[in-house]
């Protein structure tokens, strides 16, 4: 009797387990095409980059004995190292400026615009996001060039006697970048600001907190995920972008992506380009680890 119950229970567990396995297989089968595509065209190429970074070019020949020569060259070569430091400097500056400018904008939309119109204002705030990034950098050139709009305006107003050097330098690169990433960060920060329960702020006020205290102790900490998400996306896209510095930055202070493209197009040195790409990946990983505390992959 008891044995029969136990056997029945065991059978049911077994059937359920079978069902769960079939369910898991079905789910996996549906996800398989996307997973295989990612494996074939993302993981495999990433592995290929690491592998090729261990090869090296000697003259016109490709030497495939694995070695760390490219990395040694990276550490020994001043222009490579300088490009990395330039990249880190520009990217950190852009990330900080973008968050500092985006926060008040996102805050104003979330707190000073009627709820029904917030969506519209947010859309307006990020509308130029849809310009292609090649075109966007070119548009900044129109603004900042020696005979561009800003210089012409300054001279017409008598504020400058000759055109200021606003383009073809690192300042122009930073300006072009910040323009794009202010819009991106406004989106992520706004998203976390509107998720804050307004009753929390009322409670803080009831407990005697001033406006500034409420902001610093309630609003700011609760919007940290939006800030972190915006900062991380800014870092990843900014440190890998070739177009903005190439159009706006001039040729004096190259960034890592420009040096990578130089290896490919000018020298056909794919192994060195691969090694420098690994350096970019390592920098992105460092940024991720720094921000990981606040980055959550919650489902919306």
């Amino acid at each position, binding site marked *: 009797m008891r044995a029969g119950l136990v056997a029945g229970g065991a059978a049911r567990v077994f059937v359920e387990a079978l069902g769960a396995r079939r369910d898991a297989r079905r789910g996996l089968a*549906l996800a398989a095409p996307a997973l295989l595509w990612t494996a074939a065209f993302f993981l495999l*190429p990433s592995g290929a980059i690491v592998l090729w970074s261990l090869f090296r070019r000697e003259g016109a020949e490709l030497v495939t004995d694995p070695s760390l020569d490219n990395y040694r060259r990276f550490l020994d070569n001043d222009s490579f190292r300088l490009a990395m430091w330039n990249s880190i400097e520009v990217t950190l500056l852009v990330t900080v400026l973008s968050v500092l400018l985006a926060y*008040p904008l996102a805050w104003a939309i979330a707190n000073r615009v009627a709820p029904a119109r917030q969506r519209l204002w947010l859309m307006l705030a990020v*509308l130029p996001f849809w310009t292609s990034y090649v075109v966007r950098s070119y548009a900044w050139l*129109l603004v900042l060039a020696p005979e561009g709009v800003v210089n012409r305006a300054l001279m017409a107003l008598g504020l400058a006697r000759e055109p200021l050097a606003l383009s073809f330098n690192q300042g122009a690169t930073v300006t072009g970048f910040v323009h794009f990433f202010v819009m991106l960060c406004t989106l992520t920060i706004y998203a976390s600001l509107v998720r804050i329960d307004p009753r929390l702020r009322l409670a803080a006020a009831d407990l005697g907190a001033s406006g500034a205290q409420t902001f610093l102790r309630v609003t700011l900490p609760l919007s940290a995920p939006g800030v972190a998400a915006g900062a991380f996306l800014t870092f990843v896209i900014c440190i890998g972008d070739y177009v903005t510095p190439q159009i706006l930055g001039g040729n004096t202070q190259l960034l890592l992506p420009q040096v990578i493209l130089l290896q490919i197009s000018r020298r056909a040195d794919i192994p060195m380009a691969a090694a420098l790409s690994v350096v970019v990946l390592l920098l992105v990983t460092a940024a991720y680890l720094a921000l990981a505390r606040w980055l959550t992959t919650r489902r919306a």
Partner: protein
Amino acid sequence: MMAALARHGTAALVMGPLFAFIYLPVAVLVLFSLHAGSVPVPPFEGPSLHWYRAVLDNDRVTGAAWNSLLVGVLSSALATLLATLAAWGLARHRVPGARALEALLYLPLAVSYLVIGVGLLVAFSTAGIGKSLWAVGIGHVVLNLPLAFAVVYGQCDPGQARLEQAARDLGASEAQVFTRVTVPLLRPAILSAFLLSLTFSWDEFIVAFLLSGFDPTLPVVIWGMLRTGLNPATNAAGTLVFLVSLAAGMAFELFLVGRRAR
């Protein structure tokens, strides 16, 4: 009254300068696309549609626009299809290690486009696959799959599972459940994912630059136009590209907002 004024005052004080900064380059781009002179700098002369005519008569530009559209539509359709199947599979079935699989699908978002492009360049040249629009399309599916997956996955809610179960109880096969229940329920999300992918593919430069060979996409051709310096033709081409993206972006916004409003 004073309080309301103060509220609007701070809002204007904060938003005014930032909006000016955000719109300045776009305004200059569009304004000088209508310039009659041959260098797009002040003082403005015009308006004239001369440079739009010049761009639309340029076979290289229009050919590249068709290439961009072709790559965009095909790669976005494929990315959306793969993303929808994966989202459905992972949201409705209990797959062991689902978190890790999700993380793998999102991973390309955390890697710079340049690195993904260099990786594909290296992998394709190792495998003996030449540069072509197909190679660009494969790359664009990689770039857009995580975004499309995020959009569709975010809209798979448990309430839909009950409707699917009801269809199954009424005798529908799995394929019927998917095409007659799941896809209609997810249609706004699927369309959003497609449109978002399309705008990103349409604008994408670095992967196309590395992989397109002799058949360039529009951003690559515009890149080539920059070599002539400041040129109203580039303004006109840039404005046209912007308008197409804007239309797709607005459509994306409407589908997603329409979905949320329900």
